[in-house]
């Protein structure tokens, strides 16, 4: 049993090293811009997690990242290198924002219907890329990346020309009508944190249970670790691929809807893509070794970096891009480590 616990601790070692090196280089960049790196890093962390306001902002930001991370963890953990969470979130968010004002009735019904519509949209979009990849034997990674651009374009078009907010004061804002009914309740007073965060936590626990404790999760995991072994054992590989990616799409679509219903209350062009939620999600999942519960921690960490970056920019005049550099270095180190592991495995 003791050995097992050690193994469990080991899982934290690599991401911790990556984070440390990332912060170190963040410090170097700060030093270049004339800021004491130690005060800079402390301010960054304080600004991200150091006060109720900072923490609440971070948790709000972590919510869409966590949904993207969960979608990625299921896909990548099952051996499918899907980058599609971004596009699925965008379309989920858009459809949610379009459907919600049309639903008559009480808030909970509006939420339920618009969320369901978003989930289905995410699923359909994911299924499309899965189908193309399977039917034409092309790389899922590339197909999903391209589908992301496509989704973004579609969403842009519809918000600009079809569903543009008719009541908007600012005519140049590319956004849909603001929701008044069916908004997710806030958790603490007037702070931005909403019940969507709890839903994300619930989704993480649920996904952990499904992926570690059920037959489906078992088969998906074996499929990811050795697809030949899974096929040999009778796991229907095409069906598993479609099912897995369908669920991933659903989670991402849900993430998009939650961001609309909890934070923005409408679809604003670029609201998912420009903060890079999906990318951060994939990084968070990689950091956690595609473990759904681990992804909670890494998502909050990455969200905090962004929140802290904004604070540092305001307080010390360091460009917030420093957080992008830190994220980039962490990603680089984590992926490099994956490649090394993979190569080692291939050799032996």
């Amino acid at each position, binding site marked *: 049993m003791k*050995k*097992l616990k050690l193994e469990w601790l080991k899982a934290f070692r690599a991401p911790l090293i990556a984070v440390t090196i990332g912060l170190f280089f963040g410090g170097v960049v700060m030093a270049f811009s004339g800021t004491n790196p130690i005060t800079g890093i402390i301010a960054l962390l304080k600004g991200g997690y150091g006060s109720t306001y900072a923490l609440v902002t971070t948790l709000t930001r972590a919510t869409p990242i966590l949904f993207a991370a969960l979608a990625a963890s299921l896909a990548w953990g099952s051996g499918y290198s899907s980058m599609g969470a971004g596009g699925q979130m965008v379309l989920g968010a858009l459809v949610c924002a379009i459907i919600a004002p049309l639903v008559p009735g009480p808030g909970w019904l509006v939420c339920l219907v618009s969320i369901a519509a978003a989930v289905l949209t995410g699923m359909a979009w994911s299924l499309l890329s899965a189908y193309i990849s399977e039917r034409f034997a092309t790389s899922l990674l590339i197909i999903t990346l391209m589908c992301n651009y496509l989704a973004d374009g579609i969403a842009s078009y519809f918000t600009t020309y079809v569903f543009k907010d008719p009541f908007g004061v600012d005519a140049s804002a590319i956004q849909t009508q603001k929701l008044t009914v069916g908004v997710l309740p806030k958790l603490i007073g007037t702070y931005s944190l909403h019940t969507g965060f709890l839903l994300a936590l619930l989704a993480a626990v649920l996904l952990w249970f499904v992926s570690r*404790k*059920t*037959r*489906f999760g*078992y*088969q998906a*995991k*074996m499929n990811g*670790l*050795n697809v*030949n*072994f*899974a*096929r*040999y*054992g*009778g*796991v*229907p590989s095409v069906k598993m691929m479609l099912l897995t990616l369908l669920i991933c799409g659903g989670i991402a679509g849900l993430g998009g809807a939650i961001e609309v219903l909890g934070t923005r209350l409408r679809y604003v062009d670029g609201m998912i893509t420009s903060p890079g939620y999906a990318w951060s999600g994939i990084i968070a999942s990689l950091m956690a070794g595609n473990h759904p519960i681990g992804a909670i921690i890494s998502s909050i960490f990455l969200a905090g970096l962004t929140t802290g970056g904004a604070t540092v920019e305001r307080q010390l005049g360091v460009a917030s891009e420093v957080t992008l550099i830190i994220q980039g270095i962490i990603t680089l180190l984590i992926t490099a480590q994956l490649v090394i592991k993979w190569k080692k*495995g291939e050799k*032996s």
Partner: protein
Amino acid sequence: MLVEMKHITKRYGEVIANDDVSLALEENEILAIVGENGAGKTTIMKILYGLEHPDAGEIFIRGQKVLITSPRAAMAHHIGMVQQHFMLFDTLSAAENIVYQNEIRKGIFFDHKKTNQTVLELSQSYGLPIDPQAIVQQLPIGSQQRVEILKILYQQSQIIIFDEPSAVLTPLEVEELLKTMKQLKAMGKSLILITHKLQEVMDVADRVIVMRQGKVTFESKVTDTNVKELTYHMVKRHLNTRTLKPQNPGEVQLELKHISVYGNSAKKELDDISLCVRSFEIVGIAGVSGNGQSLLARVVSGLLDSDAGELFIKGQNLTHQSVHSIRQAGLSHVPDDRYLWGSAREATLGENALMGFEYRPDFTQKGILKSQKIKHLTNSLIDRYQIKADEWQQKMSQLSGGNAQKLVVGREFEQNSEVLLVNEPTRGIDIGAMEFIHQQLVEKRDNGCAILLISSDLNEIMTLSDRIIVLFEGRINATFVRGEADARQLGLYMVKRYEEIET
């Protein structure tokens, strides 16, 4: 002496691949190393070529002690190796492959014209015709091998190692290859031929070394020995030591009717295979690797759809059915590669043990895994099959090859299926584990299982089978009843069409 290897020992975990092996290669001779699978032939040559490093022992070239740490170092000593699996870039041309790492340049650019010219001259001077501009993947296997040989000659190798070069070739290509080898010798090269085809040894080699279980057991000039003597030294110790209890075969459990797989070439890869296996019997499929055995296994297990013919298990027609339905119908399958097919190395022992059981109500309830039951299953496998493991949640990759194989075998045997497809069950594992697995197979048979055993280890086939079918070039070449044929006869049917033998 050109090359001397002295007291070489190499261990892989608990398995000794080479146990104090000494051998020598003289200038301008063809030395053959023969032995069964796992006898250590390839390992000793990989050591000479720098792919493996010995735990003990020394290598001398022309009396000078050398350290060969990598294939690059081997090349510096003019040693080249034609590997069993060609080391070629499929999408590049023959010439580009041949000059790889010693490219002919014009300034900083690759000089295509001069490369093609040089390669053409090279191929003509050795009498190995090849089109320099042909793309490797479009060449037949025999020509690909020629590219590989030319690559080594281009590197100016004097010592050329051939690792089972004929295993993948058609008989005509083999003839060509043997001619090439003689010619290379005539041009002053020294050759080492690893093989288990004794006729080839008799045809081209000057001297022969027999290896068994990691040791050199016999050495002779080819003119002073014969196939019979070599066979004896290759397999003597445990040949037919196992006596099978006579059983009356029961009903037909597994039946193949006219199964064919067309493949890409004009030649069918599996050609009209019809066979049946009854309960209480083991039917052995003998043959040199690459004569359709692995395709046959994939068709029977449902991993590959046959192009023609029908598959029946316990009377049920399972042609074109999924792996899952075939398993449900009562087939268990020990695959030929425990890591490629048989397990997930990064998964736990428990997860590996569960495969195939995950639909049984004992192990899942409404789709939820019962971890206590899985733990129990894994631990009982560890106990019953004497697997050396610490605990059920350790990673598969931590087990040695033999123990990993026992887990795979145990998992399939414990499914209690009435039909067993067992493919190369003891490849690359130590004698102890091998004996154990053989024992289990015989027990299964005596308990009424119908077993189809595929093995390229002739000894294994002869020890265990009630009936023996010889596969050659995707066809059934001969069928024998236990004891009807000896190793020599079987060996003959493994390398020649029966039409050629019987006329």
